C-alpha cells in the first residue's frame, strides 16, 4: 500500500471513530426524545403511535415545574456567589505571590473532585450536627456555591494568565485610576471567561442530584423529583421534561456559540 492510501485509511479511521462517538453520544438522547412523543413511552417496540399527551401532563405537573423553578433559583444564586468569589480568587492567584498559594488553589479545586456523595454527607452532618442548621433551600445554595467555585476558578484563572496586564497599565497611563481601570478594562476583557465560568457553575448546580439530595431538607429540586420519577418508572414525564431541557440547552448553546467563542472557553481556556 502506498503512502497516500495509508493516509486515506488513517483519515477514514479517525473520522470513523469520531463519527461513531457522536452517534454514541447522541443515540440515547435521540431515542429518549422520540419516546417523549410516543404513546408507549418506555421502549420503541411495540410502537403504539405518537402523542403530545406526555408534554401536557408534564407541564401540568405543578410540583415538577415548581421544582424546576426552585432549581433555577438555587443555580442562579449559587452560581452568582461562586462567580463573585471565584473571580476575586482568580485575581489573587493570577496576580499575587502569597504563602500557601498552592494550597489555596488546591482547596479551590477540591469541591469539584470530591465525590458528590461524600460532599453531600459532609455538608449534611456539618449543617445538622455541628451548626444545627435545618437543611433547606439555603443549605443547597451554600453547598452549590462551593461546588461551583472550581469551575469559575479554573476558567477565569487560565484566562487571567493570558490576560495582558499591560492593558491595565495602558489604562492607568491614560489617566484611569485603579477602580476605573477595573471597570473599563479588566472586567470587560475578562467578561467572556467570567460568563463561561458562571454558566458552568450554574449548570453544575442545576444538574446536581446527590449533593442536593442530602442537604435539600424539604425543598424540592428538579433532580430529586426526576430521580424519584425514574425510580418509580414514570417514564412519560421524565422523557418529556428531559427532552424539553435538551431543547432549551441546545437553543441557549447555539446562541452562546454564535455570540461568543464559548467553545474555546470551554475547550481551550488558554484563549488565543
Amino acid at each position, binding site marked *: 500500500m502506498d503512502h497516500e492510501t495509508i493516509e486515506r485509511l488513517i483519515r477514514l479511521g479517525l473520522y470513523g471513530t469520531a463519527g461513531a462517538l457522536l452517534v454514541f453520544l447522541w443515540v440515547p438522547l435521540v431515542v429518549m426524545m422520540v419516546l417523549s412523543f410516543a404513546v408507549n413511552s418506555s421502549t420503541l417496540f411495540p410502537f403504539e403511535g405518537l402523542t403530545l399527551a406526555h408534554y401536557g401532563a408534564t407541564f401540568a405537573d405543578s410540583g415538577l415545574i415548581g421544582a424546576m423553578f426552585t432549581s433555577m433559583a438555587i443555580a442562579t444564586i449559587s452560581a452568582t456567589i461562586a462567580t463573585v468569589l471565584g473571580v476575586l480568587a482568580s485575581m489573587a492567584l493570577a496576580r499575587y505571590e502569597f504563602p500557601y498559594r498552592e494550597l489555596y488553589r488546591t482547596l479551590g479545586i477540591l469541591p469539584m473532585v470530591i465525590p458528590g456523595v461524600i460532599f453531600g454527607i459532609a455538608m449534611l452532618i456539618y449543617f445538622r450536627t455541628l451548626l444545627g442548621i435545618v437543611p433547606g433551600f439555603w443549605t443547597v445554595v451554600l453547598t452549590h456555591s462551593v461546588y461551583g467555585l472550581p469551575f469559575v476558578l479554573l476558567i477565569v484563572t487560565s484566562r487571567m494568565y493570558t490576560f*495582558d496586564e*499591560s*492593558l491595565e*497599565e*495602558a*489604562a*492607568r*497611563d*491614560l*489617566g*484611569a*485610576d485603579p477602580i*476605573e481601570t477595573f471597570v*473599563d*478594562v479588566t472586567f*470587560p*476583557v475578562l467578561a467572556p471567561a467570567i460568563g463561561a465560568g458562571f454558566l458552568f457553575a450554574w449548570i453544575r448546580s442545576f444538574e446536581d442530584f446527590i449533593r442536593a439530595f442530602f442537604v435539600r431538607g424539604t425543598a424540592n429540586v428538579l433532580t430529586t423529583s426526576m430521580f424519584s420519577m425514574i425510580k418509580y418508572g414514570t417514564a412519560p414525564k421524565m422523557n418529556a421534561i428531559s427532552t424539553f431541557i435538551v431543547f432549551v440547552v441546545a437553543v441557549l448553546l447555539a446562541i452562546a456559540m454564535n455570540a461568543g467563542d464559548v467553545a474555546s472557553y470551554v475547550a481551550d481556556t488558554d484563549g488565543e
Partner: protein
Amino acid sequence: MATADHGETLVELDGIRKEYGDVTAVDGIDFSIERGEFFSLVGPSGCGKTTTLRTISGFESPTNGELSIDGVSMAGIPPEARETNLVFQHLSLFPHMSVSENVEYGLKKSGFPDGEEPDDPEARRRELAGEYLDLVDLSGYGDRNPTELSGGQQQRVALARALVNEPSVLLLDEPLSSLDRKLRKQMQVELRRIHERTEGAFFYVTHDQEVAMTLSDRIAVMNEGKLEQVGPPEEIYREPATPFVADFIGDTNLFTGTVHTDGDGTAIELADGVSFAVDDTAADGEVTVSIRPEDFELVDDGTLVGTVTERYFQGDSTNYRIEPEADIETLTVVAQGRESPVDRGDEVSVTVAPDAPVLFD
C-alpha cells in the same frame, strides 16, 4: 504642533536606582531629556531599559534617586497623574473598544473637553481622536476593531492613543520589534515625521541600535544597569566612550595593543610588526582598540597581511573575514560600493587611516 523647543530640561533622572530583591535592574543613572527631543535608550536585553522607562511613567518607584518632570518631583505621583504617555511593546490596544474609542479613552479620563459644559463632549472627543488618527494616516479607520488592522496600522493606533493626550514625554518601549523588516523601516520614517509634527519629547527604548541611530537626536547606551555614554548618534558611533559602546553600536573589530609615541607621532602595535599610526592619543600603554570594518582599506602594502576566509555579498557592500598572519583576532572588513575587489582565499593586506582607530584604556 511643530517647533521643537530644545535646550530646556524636561525630564531629569538623578541617581536613579531600582532593585528587585537581589537583582539591581538599574544601578544609579543620571540623564536628562530635553523638551521636544527624540531621545533613545539602547542596550542589550536585560540591561534595565524597560525598568528605566517604567520608572519615568510611574509604574515603578525607584529604590533610590530622584525623578522630576518639568521641575516637579514625581515621588508618589501615580502613572495616571503624570504628563507622560506610553506606547507599549505589544501595543496593548483595548480589544473591546474600536480604534476611535481606544484613542478617545485617554481624553475621557483626563476630562476632556474641560472647563465649560460643552454641548456634546462625546463628539468633541471623537473629533479630536479623528484628528490624531489623521496624523498617523488612519483616517476612516476609527470604527474598526483593532484586531482588524495590520501590525503596522495597530502600531499607529497605539501611537495616536498616546499622542492624543499631548504628553510632555511620549515613552516608547520597543514599539517596532514585533514588525517585519519592511514595515519596521517604514514605521521608522513615520515616527520621525510624527515626532516633528508634535511638540513633546520622545523617549525611545530599544535594543536595536540601527533604529536608534537613525531616529534619535541623542542616544544613551546602557549596560548592566549603568549608563555607558550619552550623546548624538555620530558622537556615539565615532567616539565611543567604551569598548562596549564601540561593539554594541555598529560593528567593530576590537584588539588589544600597545601605544608607542615617538618622533613620527603615535602608533599602536597589535602584534609583532603589525602597527598603525593613530591620531587618537587619549590612552597609553596597554590599550583596547576599536576599528570599524569600513575603516580598513585593502591596499598593496598594508602592515596587516592575511587571507580572506569568507566573503559575504551584501548588495551595496561586501563583507570579508580575514585571518591575519600575525597572532591577532580574525578581522571583519567591509568593502563598500559595487566593487568586490578580492575573493576567498586571496592573500590581502590592509591599512587603516590614522583618524579611524579609537583607543580605550
